[in-house]
């Protein structure tokens, strides 16, 4: 019997009522009395010397409050980077200054040059058109391999080159890895591109800065996944505002997908300008601005090789990746191709020797940072494409080759620094084979062929790492932040709870699933628990939501705080029951003396805490409010196996996804419906990357896919009905709920299955091309079929 409430129940998402009825409170819904609007004049060229920005004609125009240029921000801090990578020679990465407004040079299309604050947005735009720019065009660097060549134009004149870092992992293993390749029975080599993506959350970024002259308090309303992180980064590093004078509010946020983790110049600008102009300043990104100013994702160019012995055991793996940083280092950009990518290269396999090289490169493009999956999709894609290629070269069944090399015993220490606590890759693969109806494939292929179509089947496995941790380790790896999470649980006098979490929900459904956990622990209805998040003024310092960390890390902090609440409430109850504390237990919302029918209800205990008439005041304080911080001892490691079936029209190259099966192991599950929804969304983004999405630049650094006319988003009609299962559960061993993370799995696990299926379809049509790059567009397929 499925549960109807508490942990394990598919409780309906309570937040959807307001989202679906237009009652959400998004940042753009926030209007401060007397606010002005800012329009950013952005660079329309990729690289140039900014000789002058002449605002004289614009300054006096109707409605103009003030025009800012780079010169106004010379004394203001650089937009900071939150992670410092140390390269293979022990040198720290090259880290350029990132100004709020361009100064001296422009470095990518979309970089803000001037900001016009005016009474209305249209007046600000009118004035921006009257600003005269004197820019000397410089040759742009777009291609990463060209960018690192001797003599290439430099994105940052004060750096030694366009190479941010050259990372080797694990450098000490390199010689042994190379030696294993020398002895290999077979070597499979693959070169591929992991296509650049634009996150495209439905809600574009918005920032409203406000300043209260009477108190000197700043407020920033912003579309963020982590308001405390923004407060710290912007307050401490850019504007020099102490946290107690700065409040950051991230109210309802309409999708983040990673791109709303980072601290952006526009946030610093509105906060700063509100004080200078002495009135609130609002910025709402247009969709066009989003394409050229939201951090992009992926963009790796990789060569990867697998060594196998004569029995098809994997003996060594090595990779060589160029990772695009864009023109500046976005908040977590350096960590994505390194610690979130290299550490995952073992995948589900017991390959004993692994070496990963990553060269991070500056180019005249929009900064690139974490996007749903962040590093793990790049790792999974290359590895799972490679294993498939090896299977075909060796003429062995791709599933069999995978199974033969699976890690079977846990915990398992990989050669790339991480230790998987639990997993059962055989179980998810068994489940997948059943779901995918492999036996029926032959018939389905014949049916397709009868219609003149080709049909292909592809699988892959994935392993990922969620809830990046622990803080003391990530600190050694270069993180300039902790990676704990926090929670304050406040019990009100009549028994209801307010749970103030440092996690942030921007579509994930925390308001529902977090409440399920607390309600279950106490044994009360879910609607007695309110989840509060997104405002530094009423939540404890927390690190926010990304990397599928919320339940595993934020949920654990919440469990710990609730345990403290229960411990104290038990003390109060035992006093009321005149029993010894050890004999009193909480069950179904009542405290009972074990073995008796003496009990006191939850609400009577909470009332006693705030009306402490009959209360052990000499032993415990009144009130019932507890805070906990939780710093995990390890990542969690969800894993799974995915299968994709495509139909390919050989005449047009059009590929359609006919079936998609996903067998995931997320450990314990709090709300199965929400988990399924998270997988569905991830699959849409993964299949979107595989077949449709492509952020393309030309060689001058012009963004070719700068709108939905050219950037193909997946739509419902591009996607099949998914078959999703998460019944294989190996609980995480080191967090109290035994949960892993499910937010990114779909996006991580699906691209290789799609591409493997397309290549299988092409082979069935007599064309073995070895590899095809994403997005597998009709044009590319047709060209490959006719090459």
């Amino acid at each position, binding site marked *: 019997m499925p549960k109807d409430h508490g942990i394990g129940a598919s409780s309906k998402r309570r937040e959807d009522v307001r989202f679906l009825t237009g009652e959400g409170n998004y940042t753009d819904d926030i209007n401060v009395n007397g606010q002005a609007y800012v329009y950013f004049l952005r660079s329309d060229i990729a690289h140039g010397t900014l000789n002058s920005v002449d605002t004289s004609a614009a300054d006096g125009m109707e409605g103009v409050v003030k025009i800012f240029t780079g010169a106004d921000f010379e004394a203001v801090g650089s937009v900071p980077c939150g992670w410092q990578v140390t390269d293979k020679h022990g040198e720290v990465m090259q880290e350029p200054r990132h100004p709020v407004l361009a100064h001296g040079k422009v470095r990518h299309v979309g970089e803000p040059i001037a900001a016009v604050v005016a009474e209305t947005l*249209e007046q600000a*735009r*009118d004035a921006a*058109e009257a600003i005269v720019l004197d820019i000397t065009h410089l040759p742009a660097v777009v291609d990463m391999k060209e960018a690192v060549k001797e003599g290439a134009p430099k994105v940052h004149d004060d750096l030694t080159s366009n190479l941010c870092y050259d990372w080797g992992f694990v450098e000490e293993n390199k010689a042994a890895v190379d030696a294993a390749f020398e002895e290999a029975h077979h070597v499979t080599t693959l070169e591929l591109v992991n296509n650049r993506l634009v996150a495209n959350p439905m809600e574009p970024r918005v920032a409203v800065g406000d300043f209260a002259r009477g108190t000197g308090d700043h407020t920033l309303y912003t579309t963020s996944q982590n308001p405390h992180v923004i407060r710290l980064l912007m307050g401490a590093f850019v504007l020099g505002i102490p946290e107690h004078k700065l409040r950051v509010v991230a109210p309802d946020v309409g999708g983040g997908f990673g791109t709303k983790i980072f601290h952006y110049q526009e946030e610093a600008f509105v906060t700063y300008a509100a004080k200078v102009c002495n009135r609130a300043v609002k910025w709402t990104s247009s969709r*066009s601005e989003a394409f050229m100013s939201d951090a992009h994702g992926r963009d790796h160019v990789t060569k990867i090789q697998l060594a196998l012995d004569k029995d098809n055991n994997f003996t060594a793996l090595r990779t060589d990746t160029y990772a695009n940083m864009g023109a500046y280092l976005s908040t977590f950009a350096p960590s994505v191709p390194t610690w979130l990518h290299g550490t995952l290269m073992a995948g589900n396999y017991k390959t004993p020797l692994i070496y990963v090289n990553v060269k991070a490169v500056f180019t005249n493009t929009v900064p690139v940072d974490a996007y749903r999956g962040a590093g793990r999709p790049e790792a999974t894609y290359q590895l799972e494409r490679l294993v498939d290629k090896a299977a075909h070269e060796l003429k062995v069944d791709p599933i069999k080759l995978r199974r033969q090399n699976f890690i079977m015993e846990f915990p398992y220490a990989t050669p790339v620094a991480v230790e998987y606590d639990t997993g059962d890759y055989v179980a998810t693969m068994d489940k997948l084979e059943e779901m995918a109806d492999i036996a029926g494939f032959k018939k389905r292929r014949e049916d397709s062929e009868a219609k003149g179509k080709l049909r292909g089947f592809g699988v892959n496995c994935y392993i990922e790492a969620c809830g990046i941790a622990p803080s003391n380790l990530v600190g050694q790896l270069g993180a300039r932040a902790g990676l704990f999470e926090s929670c304050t649980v406040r019990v009100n006098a009549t028994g209801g709870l307010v749970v103030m979490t440092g996690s942030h929900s921007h579509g994930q459904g925390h308001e529902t699933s977090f409440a399920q956990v607390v309600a279950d622990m106490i044994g009360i209805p879910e609607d007695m628990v309110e989840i509060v998040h997104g405002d530094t003024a009423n939540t404890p310092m927390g690190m926010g939501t990304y990397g599928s960390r919320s339940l595993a890390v934020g949920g654990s902090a919440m469990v710990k705080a609730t345990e403290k609440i229960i411990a104290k409430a038990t003390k109060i109850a035992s006093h009321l029951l005149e029993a010894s504390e050890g004999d009193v237990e909480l069950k179904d919302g009542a405290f009972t003396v074990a073995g008796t029918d003496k009990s006191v209800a939850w609400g009577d205990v909470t009332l006693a805490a705030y009306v402490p008439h009959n209360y052990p005041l000499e032993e415990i304080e009144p009130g019932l409010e507890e805070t906990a911080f939780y710093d995990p001892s390890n990542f969690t490691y969800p894993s799974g196996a995915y299968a994709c079936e495509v139909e390919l029209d050989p*005449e*047009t*190259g*059009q590929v359609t996804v006919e079936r998609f099966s996903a067998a995931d192991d997320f450990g314990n599950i709090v709300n199965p419906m929400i988990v399924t929804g998270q997988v569905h969304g991830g699959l849409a983004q993964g299949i979107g990357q595989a*077949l*449709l999405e*492509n952020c*393309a630049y030309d060689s001058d650094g012009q963004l*070719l*896919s700068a709108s*939905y*006319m*050219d*950037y*193909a*988003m997946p739509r419902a009609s591009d996607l099949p009905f998914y078959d999703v299962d998460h019944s294989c559960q190996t609980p995480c061993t080191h967090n109290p709920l035994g949960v892993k993370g499910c937010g990114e799995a779909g996006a991580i696990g699906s691209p290789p299955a799609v591409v493997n299926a397309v290549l299988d379809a092409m082979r069935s049509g007599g064309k073995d091309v070895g590899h095809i790059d994403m997005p597998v*567009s*009709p*044009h590319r397929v*047709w*060209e490959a079929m006719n090459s």
Partner: protein
Amino acid sequence: MYNFDVEMPTSIADAVKALGREEAQPMSGGQTLIPTLKARLAAPSVLVSLHSIPEMKGVCKNDAGDICIGGATTHATVAAEAVDYPALASLAARIGDPAVRNRGTIGGSVANNDPSACYPAGVLGSGATIVTNNREIAADDYFLGMFETALEEGEIVTEVKFPIPEVAHYEKHLQPASRFPLVAVFVAKFADGVRVAITGASENGVFRWTEAENALSGNFSASALDGLSLSGDKMISDLHGSGKYRAHLCGVMAKRAVAAAS
């Protein structure tokens, strides 16, 4: 957007008069024009809305048996009401999305003559007649190149008249992002011959594939097109497909259109 005035005439005559104002521009469904205005790529000082002119709306049949569609008739209306010309109704039903179909109009589409738009293929492929406020123009004389038509300054498309073929079909291969045609072919078989019009492919906008027309006029079957091909040289080449690919798709779409029509 820059500021502009709006006029809402209720007759063609008043619309023509309003268009006499300086920097005036007609607006029909606004599905092309409004995004252009928002991007500040156009700056008319007066927008003359064609939305409230009853004589420019609706689908009917004239004495010659032609289907006559008012210039301000939406794609959704054509999809629902052009029942006597199913291939045309189906073309209209597949333009954009519901919001676009409920606002966008045939007059706006043929006036704009986007090289990837659907209607130009239907109009040219049917040998339709474009009726304006002061003349009638045969489709063959109307489409002059990418975004270029025979319309003069201030001239408005008030109606499009379609002769009804024996059979016809519109086959389109979608550009994955915009969902406009990457290449689409409209094939129509009349008693006196076959017309084949192609959109999305050429740098000069919609065109007739006369070689295919000749082959099909003798033998209306997909196999009649075997061995025929177009050159990709003057075809659009972009992120979504090379000229060569588009030329190839012309052949595939034409064959599929014929197969579906016959």
